[in-house]
């Protein structure tokens, strides 16, 4: 039996070679594996283009970070384009001066763990197996300048998947499980207990409530319990009109869930409550009814009529 000799990871050798090959005055750009997957891929493509134009190369670090070494012109242009497109500027290291900080940074970044890729079958099994206690999440919301809870959202726990399509699929499946548990007295105990007296915000699958509608209250109250549908439900206007009419008749107000705080600026939906991530700046056309998701809660969310997660 032979004991393998400790190996220097391949990326260290490659980095040493590419640094040695780069003429003085070159630039290293370190693109951390941050932001959504699409933005990361876009950054990689721009770095690779700069490598071709700037006589350098792109090195993938084990944790998913990318390192470009190239002539300064193309490298700088790529860094600027990445900052403009994704809003997340990468780090620049002028060479050879900044070689030591660069190596330290690469070394630290290399420890990050890559995110696993899901197959459909694996995701389906995972979502079906998740215990309800972990699959459901109850979030409390305060209103305006207040910090005591006035509303509660019962929805699926986000899986934090890289792929928006798979995340949407998981959401659909979990919503259906939640709904089934909510209407089954035997299973209801597995869900986080709802607080009495707080307005209910309930995540629903894209098609709304299947079959017999779950009664929420008297119809026509815009501040009644809120049925939360994904924005994608709008893509089939006829089906959307049908499912929302049924929900309204059963006493639900309608909310739409978008992954971009700019979405309310694109669509005009006067009777809809928008549910969006709490971005640094308010949306361009602030909707009449708005629920901001996530913490920290930016100052603009603490305004009358806006629900946010800033619960003390």
């Amino acid at each position, binding site marked *: 039996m032979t004991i393998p000799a400790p190996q220097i990871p391949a990326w260290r050798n490659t980095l040493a070679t590419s640094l040695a090959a780069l003429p003085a005055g070159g630039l290293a750009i370190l693109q951390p594996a941050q932001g959504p997957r699409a933005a990361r891929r876009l950054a990689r493509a721009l770095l690779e283009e700069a490598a071709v134009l700037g006589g350098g190369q792109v090195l993938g670090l084990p944790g998913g970070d990318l390192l470009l070494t190239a002539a300064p012109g193309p490298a700088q242009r790529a860094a600027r384009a990445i900052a403009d497109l994704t809003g997340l500027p990468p780090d620049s290291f002028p060479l050879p001066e900044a070689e030591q900080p660069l190596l330290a940074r690469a070394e630290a970044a290399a420890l990050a763990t890559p995110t696993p890729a899901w197959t459909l*079958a694996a995701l389906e099994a995972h979502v079906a197996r998740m215990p309800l206690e972990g699959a459901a999440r109850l979030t409390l919301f305060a209103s305006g300048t207040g910090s005591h809870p006035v509303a509660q959202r019962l929805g699926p726990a986000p899986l934090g998947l890289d792929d928006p399509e798979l995340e949407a699929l998981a959401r659909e499946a979990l919503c259906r499980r939640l709904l089934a548990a909510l209407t089954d007295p035997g299973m209801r105990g597995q869900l986080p207990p709802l607080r009495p007296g707080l307005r209910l915000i309930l995540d629903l699958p894209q098609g709304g409530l299947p079959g017999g509608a779950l009664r929420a209250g008297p119809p026509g109250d815009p501040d009644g319990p809120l049925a939360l549908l994904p*924005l994608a439900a709008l893509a089939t206007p006829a089906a959307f009109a049908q499912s929302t009419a049924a929900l309204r008749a059963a006493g639900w107000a309608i909310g739409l869930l978008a992954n971009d705080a700019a979405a309310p600026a694109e669509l005009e939906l006067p009777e809809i409550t928008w549910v969006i991530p709490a971005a640094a700046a308010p949306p361009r056309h602030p909707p009449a009814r708005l629920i901001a998701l996530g913490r920290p809660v930016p100052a603009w969310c603490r305004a009358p009529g806006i629900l946010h997660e800033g619960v003390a």
Partner: protein
Amino acid sequence: MNALTLPPSPLAGPDPATTPRDAMALAALARDCVNSGVERRVLHVRLSLIPNRLREPRHDRLVREALEPLLRPTRARLYELPGGDLVALSPPPGDHLEEARRGLARLLPEIPAETLLPVMRLPAEAARLLTVVEAALGLDDPGEEPPAPAPSGLPPPGAAEMDAATRALATANLAAFLRRQTIWRLAPGDARPQPLWTELRPCLPDLAAALLPGRDVSAAPWLARRFRVAAERRMLAELARPQEARALGDACLPLSLASLLETEFLRLEALLGPAGRGRVLLGVPAADQLADPAGFALLRRLAAARGWALALDEAEPELLRLFRPEALQGLQLRLRFTPSLLAGDGTARTRLDAALPAGREGVVLTGADSPAAIAWGWQRGIIRFMGRVLDGR
């Protein structure tokens, strides 16, 4: 306008691409007569009524001869309608119209002249003439909506089967499954349509039948979407080779948002360079924009920075209405023509027209399979079309 020439074979049927132009010109002229009070005599030659047994080459010649009195521009103007009818207009008293009418009536004694060869007066009977034109264009009747694809009755593929199919797609040769169709520019005054782009897309039903036999991938929207993305990524991988990319030229690529944010597309986009990117129109389904507005915003910034033309695709008119005008700015639009666009009362039509972006030159009307589509588009200032009515020429 077809004032001087007669189709080489009047009974062989009309040219589907040019007859809407004649029909629209005729409708405009009828309205002009009403506005200005100018009088015209009209002869409607209903060649479409001639039964098949009489449609022989020798009749072609006889009909041409009978129409001869009209074929001088000083005497009359001749318009060819979709469906094959001819309309001749002349200032009063319209002796030449009468002469042609008598000749034609002698040729076809089986059909009463009042039916085969109605005569109208403008401006008094402008409404009647406009009805004739609208009927010829198919604008009066929404007609049959193409039947929705019947549910196949096949079960949807399971997750493991989908995984296997997408894996197989990643290395499949798609050459036999790619479909090309031209997008044309045809304005009301144009003699012939000009090609703008060649649309390139994988034929998903054929691919699904080959890779998932006995399964219905369209049974659930998300399955269909996933399959589509896998097929598009494979197509893009094939296009993202230096030789293929150079040959791409003026192309329209209708792609899912997910495919546009994948490595294969980004490789192609780098390979094409600024000049190549400027010749390509990308189309993104409106549903994808709604499902991932953040991803779409990223793509829009990329398109603006790198010189792509970007179109919103497959948007139902009802959805279009919900977008704020500024949200569609800088975007082109691919709108699918369906006979249902002709249905509805004036209010419904006004609502739809208001939903279309102000810059109509950026709209492509797809599914233009009938002259009615061209006429409907022209009425709204749309001059870009894709469909069988233009391809079949």
